[in-house]
Every structure is written in structure tokens, then in C-alpha cells.
């Protein structure tokens, strides 16, 4: 539910972009700092190695050699700041190793602990000469930068190693803090962007709800326009302009249909009236018959005209609904009573299964015409002796009316567009407006109609209308 909202998606993407950006910036800073630290240690290492090599070369190789070189090395290691961690261990470690190539004498070692692990690490690393390299030493958390320096004429190589743990420690601390801050900021950013996006989009949602509520009945309603002219209030203004246009075209359509109705009805009324009064005084049976037929045709023309105008209005959403609560089962039963003899005459069997107490808020006269259209449709299209099943049920807040027959069903050529105007089967006697009218009326009331084929053959028309009361009323 939450994940389908635009506010959620917008804030996720902003947060992602933000986190990615800050992460990248930190990574660059981290790499720069780490490189600076390494360059600094490397410069120190190279310098010290040079000094030590000089001292080693200049000191005569007697019994004092180890002591002198050892002292110098010791002094060199002291040049580093004496930083200690919380457990009191020295953070910066330096070692010095002078090793004879032939391995005759034991190597000279100045550094923490035994020289063995360092020697093993150096031998495994295959150090080049002059350039410092990182070497992992067993038992030490950070690698040592080690430089190798051969001493000419002595067959000896000295190694100087530095583990700049204090600086690395600072860098690690920095990274840890950054990660915490980073997470916090991303979360805060997400919350802020979600809240602001949600606030903005709630206004859009409000517009959507209001516009959905503005139906054909209350086209006069408008969205509230706030004073600040941001995108959303412009959206509301655009909607209002659009509603103005819709309202004016609906009004135009209504006045046109009213004018057509009025202009046609006045002459028809006088023609019909004149014919009818002629009928009363005309003794000749043959004439009376002709006049009667003329009146009947006039009535058919009028019903066609009325339905066409109603349809035009309904399809434009301009149908005027005079709504009131109607108990569906009652009204349908009344129509079934009315149509029963006509059904009997065609030997149709009508089975009604109507759930009572279902009240819909509809225009009664439109609903009546709709129900009679549905029944007329059955009468007109079924061959004699069919069975018509009419069911009325409550279905998820709606009243569902299903009319099912075991006739030939809808001809395939019209099945997909049976609700369009003037669409009818070749054999159909009607004018093709009946179902179009049903569809228009149901839609005007916020319902839906669909037709389908019964598996065993026959047509099914399913109609649903939003109900206002579904439960039996307790009195």
C-alpha cells in the first residue's frame, strides 16, 4: 500500500542518490588521506634507511658494530610520536633488521618482539630495492611499510619497517564515525523528503478525490484554489478551467437536446391530438384503422427520439438524475409481474431469485426504463420456450443483477459492442438502443454492465449498482 505511493518512490530515489553522492565524496577523501599518510611514512622510511645505510657503511665491522648501528636504529625509531591506544600499547611500530647475505652471522635486530616473524614476512615478500612496500606481518593488525637497502661492500641488506598504526587508527575512527553519520543523515534525508513529498502529493490526492466526486450531477463544484501559485495550485486551476469547459458543453448539449425535444414535440403533439380527435368522430372503420396506425407510428418515432436524446445526454455525462432510495427487489418484482403474461405468451419460464432489502440511490424513472428495456430485450430476442433466470445479490457493496437465459446468446458479430448505439443483431426487431440505454443509465449511476456467454449456451447480462443499504433492515 505504502510502496505504491509516489511519495515513497520519490523519497527512496532521493535518499539513494544522496547516500551514493556522500558515500562517493567520502571514499575520495579517504583515499587521499590514506595516500598522504603512506607518502609521509615512505619519505621517512627512505630517509632513515639512507642514514642507517651510511652509518652501517662507515662503522668498522668490529665488535662495536652491532652496538653502534643498534643505537642509531634505536634513536631513529624514537623519532616517531609515542602514541598509545587505550590499552597502553604503542601504536607506532618500527623495526630495523640488518642481515648478511651469506647468513654467516646472526642478523642485527632492533624492533618489537622476535625477529623471526618479520624475517619470514620479508623473505616471503621478495622486496625490491629502494622502494617501500606494504608487507603483512603475522600478529600485527596493520601492514608494515618496509624498505630494503643494500650496503655496498658489506654483503649486508638492511630493512627498515614502519607500521603507522596511529594514523591508520585515526583514519579508521574517522571511517566509523562517517558511517554512523552517513546512516543517520540518509535516514533523516529520507524522512524529510518523504514527509515533504507526502505533503505535496496529499494535495494532488485531494484534487483527485474532489474531481472524482464531481459527477454529472454537481458539475458546478470547483476545486479550492490556494493563493500561492505553485505547480499544484496551477493543476487545480487547470482542472477548474476544464470543469468550466465541461460544464458549458454539458449545458450546451442539454439546451440543444431540450430545444430539439421542444421543437419536435410541439408539432407532434398537435398532429397527434388532431389525429386522435379525428378518431373519435370518424365512423368509417377503415379510416379509423389508418388514423390509429398513424398515431402508433408517431408514438414509436417519439420513443425513439426520446431514447436518442437521453442517450446523447447520458453518454456525455449530462443526464439529469433525480435520485432517491429505491428497493431493488420490489421494483424488479413489479416489472416481472407486468411482463409475466407477455413471457407466458412466448412460453418463457422466468425464475426470479431476488435478495430483499437492497436499497440503491437511483433515478426511479430511469431505473424503471432500464429494467423494462432488459425484459423487452429478452422478449424480443429469445425464441419461444426459453428459461430466463434473474438473480439479485449483494456483492461487495454493490447490488448485482444477473439476467441469464438459455437462448441463442448474442450474435458473435455484436457481442463485443452490444452496448453501442444502433448495434443490433440482423434478426433483431428493435432499433438497437435498448442495451445502449441500459449501459448509459448504469454508468451514470456509477455502476457497470457486462455481457457474457453462458457455458451451456445463452446470454448473461450482469449489472452492478452501488448499493446504500445491503443488510436487512431490523424494525
Amino acid at each position: 500500500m505504502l510502496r505504491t505511493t509516489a511519495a515513497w518512490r520519490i523519497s527512496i530515489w532521493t535518499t539513494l542518490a544522496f547516500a551514493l553522492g556522500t558515500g562517493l565524496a567520502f571514499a575520495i577523501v579517504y583515499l587521499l588521506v590514506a595516500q598522504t599518510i603512506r607518502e609521509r611514512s615512505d619519505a621517512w622510511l627512505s630517509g632513515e634507511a639512507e642514514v642507517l645505510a651510511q652509518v652501517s657503511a662507515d662503522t668498522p665491522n668490529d665488535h662495536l658494530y652491532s652496538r653502534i648501528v643498534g643505537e642509531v636504529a634505536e634513536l631513529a625509531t624514537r623519532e616517531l610520536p609515542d602514541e598509545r591506544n587505550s590499552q597502553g600499547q604503542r601504536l607506532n611500530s618500527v623495526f630495523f633488521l640488518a642481515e648478511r647475505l651469506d647468513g654467516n652471522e646472526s642478523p642485527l635486530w632492533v624492533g618489537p618482539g622476535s625477529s623471526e616473524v618479520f624475517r619470514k614476512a620479508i623473505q616471503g615478500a621478495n622486496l625490491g630495492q629502494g622502494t617501500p612496500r606494504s608487507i603483512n606481518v603475522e600478529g600485527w593488525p596493520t601492514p608494515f611499510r618496509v624498505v630494503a637497502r643494500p650496503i655496498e661492500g658489506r654483503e649486508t641488506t638492511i630493512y627498515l619497517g614502519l607500521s603507522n598504526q596511529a594514523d591508520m587508527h585515526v583514519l579508521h575512527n574517522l571511517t566509523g564515525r562517517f558511517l554512523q553519520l552517513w546512516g543517520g543523515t540518509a535516514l533523516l534525508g529520507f524522512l524529510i523528503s518523504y514527509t515533504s513529498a507526502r505533503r505535496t502529493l496529499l494535495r494532488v490526492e485531494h484534487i483527485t478525490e474532489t474531481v472524482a466526486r464531481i459527477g454529472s450531477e454537481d458539475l458546478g463544484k470547483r476545486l479550492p484554489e490556494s493563493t500561492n501559485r505553485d505547480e499544484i495550485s496551477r493543476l487545480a486551476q487547470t482542472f477548474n478551467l476544464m470543469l468550466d469547459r465541461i460544464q458549458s458543453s454539458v449545458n450546451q448539449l442539454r439546451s440543444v437536446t431540450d430545444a430539439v425535444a421542444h421543437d419536435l414535440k410541439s408539432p407532434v403533439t398537435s398532429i397527434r391530438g388532431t389525429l386522435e380527435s379525428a378518431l373519435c368522430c370518424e365512423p368509417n372503420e377503415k379510416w379509423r384503422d389508418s388514423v390509429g396506425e398513424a398515431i402508433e407510428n408517431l408514438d414509436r418515432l417519439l420513443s425513439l427520439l426520446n431514447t436518442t436524446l437521453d442517450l446523447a445526454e447520458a453518454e456525455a455525462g449530462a443526464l439529469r438524475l433525480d435520485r432517491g432510495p429505491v428497493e431493488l427487489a420490489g421494483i424488479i418484482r413489479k416489472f416481472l409481474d407486468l411482463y409475466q403474461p407477455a413471457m407466458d405468451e412466448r412460453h418463457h419460464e422466468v425464475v426470479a431469485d431476488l435478495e430483499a432489502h437492497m436499497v440503491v440511490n437511483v433515478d426511479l424513472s430511469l431505473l424503471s426504463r432500464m429494467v423494462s428495456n432488459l425484459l423487452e430485450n429478452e422478449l424480443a430476442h429469445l425464441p419461444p420456450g426459453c428459461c430466463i433466470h434473474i438473480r439479485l445479490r449483494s456483492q461487495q457493496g454493490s447490488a448485482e443483477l444477473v439476467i441469464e437465459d438459455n437462448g441463442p446468446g448474442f450474435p458473435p458479430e455484436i457481442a463485443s459492442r452490444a452496448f453501442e448505439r444502433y448495434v443490433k443483431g440482423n434478426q433483431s426487431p428493435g432499433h438497437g438502443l435498448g442495451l445502449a440505454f441500459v449501459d448509459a443509465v448504469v454508468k451514470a449511476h456509477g455502476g457497470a454492465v457486462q455481457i457474457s456467454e453462458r457455458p451451456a449456451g445463452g446470454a448473461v447480462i450482469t449489472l452492478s449498482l452501488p448499493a446504500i443499504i445491503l443488510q436487512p433492515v431490523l424494525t
Partner: protein
Amino acid sequence: MRLLIVEDDVAIRGFLERALSEAGYQVDTAKDATGGELMALEGIYDAFIIDLGLPDMDGLNLIARCRAQGGSAPVLILSARRSVDERVKGLEQGGDDYLTKPFALAELLARLRNLLRRPSPAHNDPVRLEAADLQLDLVRHEARRGDQLLQLTPQEFSLLEYLCRNAGRVVTRTMILDHVWRMRVDPATNVVDVHIYRLRSKIDPVGHAPLIQTIRGVGYMLEKA
């Protein structure tokens, strides 16, 4: 009985005047609201027939103005609008009536009779109805043709009762639907006809001329004698 017709369409005015005169009313006509109002204020009319769409004033305004000046005669409103608006329906509750154009003359006459009869409704509410050799007992819901008891469904009885009450006059299908089924809809197919055929088959003995006559283009009529 004296009627005033206020209608701007000359053809409609003409045939209404003719038909109503033939039906035994004294008829005056006006072609607009101004003229109609002046005539109405004379206070000599028993009923008015007023068109809603008058050129100079809305028919409803005319009625309101007449009422405001003390006119109390019932009004039959003629409307060419397809949907009948609230105000017109309100008038119907106030004792007046409306008809949408085009209307059947038979229905206009029936509604007019109804409007004019209104002051004493309870008086002539019979318990028995008779037409030709047909007798209806409205209390026991029994119908007899001669001395033959007819087997009718409640619906058929209501239909026959309505025809009997209007014996000798033409009733339209719309009127039958309105009074017997309480539906104000236009009959599209022959639903009402089928009911009449059924009723005929029950009330007419074999070989007899039908008691209920079909008036083609208009409706049905039960013979009075």
C-alpha cells in the same frame, strides 16, 4: 365547466380548444402569460391548462402569480421538457397535475376530469361497479359476468376495476400502467395488450363480442352498456 388554455403553439391551442369543446367544456384560450393572467384574474374558470414554455413568462411563474392573487382553480401543466423538474412534481402534490407532450387526448381528458372532481373525493367511492352485464364487488373482490363468477388474479381484478371505473371512456396504455401498476413509464412493447387479451379470454364467453374494445392508436374502452 369553464376552462382556460394558456398555450403559445397555435396548432396545439387549436386542437385542444376543439377537442375540449367537443367534450362539453366551455373553453377560452390565451397565447401568452400576460393575456392568460388577465383572463385568469376574472375568476370565472374552473380549471387551467397551462403550457410551461410560454414566450413571455415561465408557466410556473404564471401559476404562482395567479395563486398569489387568490386564484384557487386546479391547474393542468403541459410540459415539453423530457425530464419533469422538482417544482412541477411539487405542484402535483399540491393538487395540480402535469402532462408531458405529446400526450394522448384521452389522458388529458381523464386528468382534467380528475382535477375537477377533486373537491369531494370521499363521496362517490362505490363498493360496487357495473358495466354492461359485468358486476364488480370491490369489498369482496369478486367479479361476475351475468351470473357467472369470474376467476381473476388480483392483478386482473385491478385492471378490470380500472376499466370499469372508466367505462364508456377510452383509457390509454400509459394510463393503465400508471393506475394499475403505479408506473409512469411508456409502454414499449405489447405488455399491456397481453394483459388485456388475458382478461378478455376470462370475461368474454366463447362466441361473444369482446366487452373490452381496442381503440387503435389510443387504447382500450370498456363498453358501458
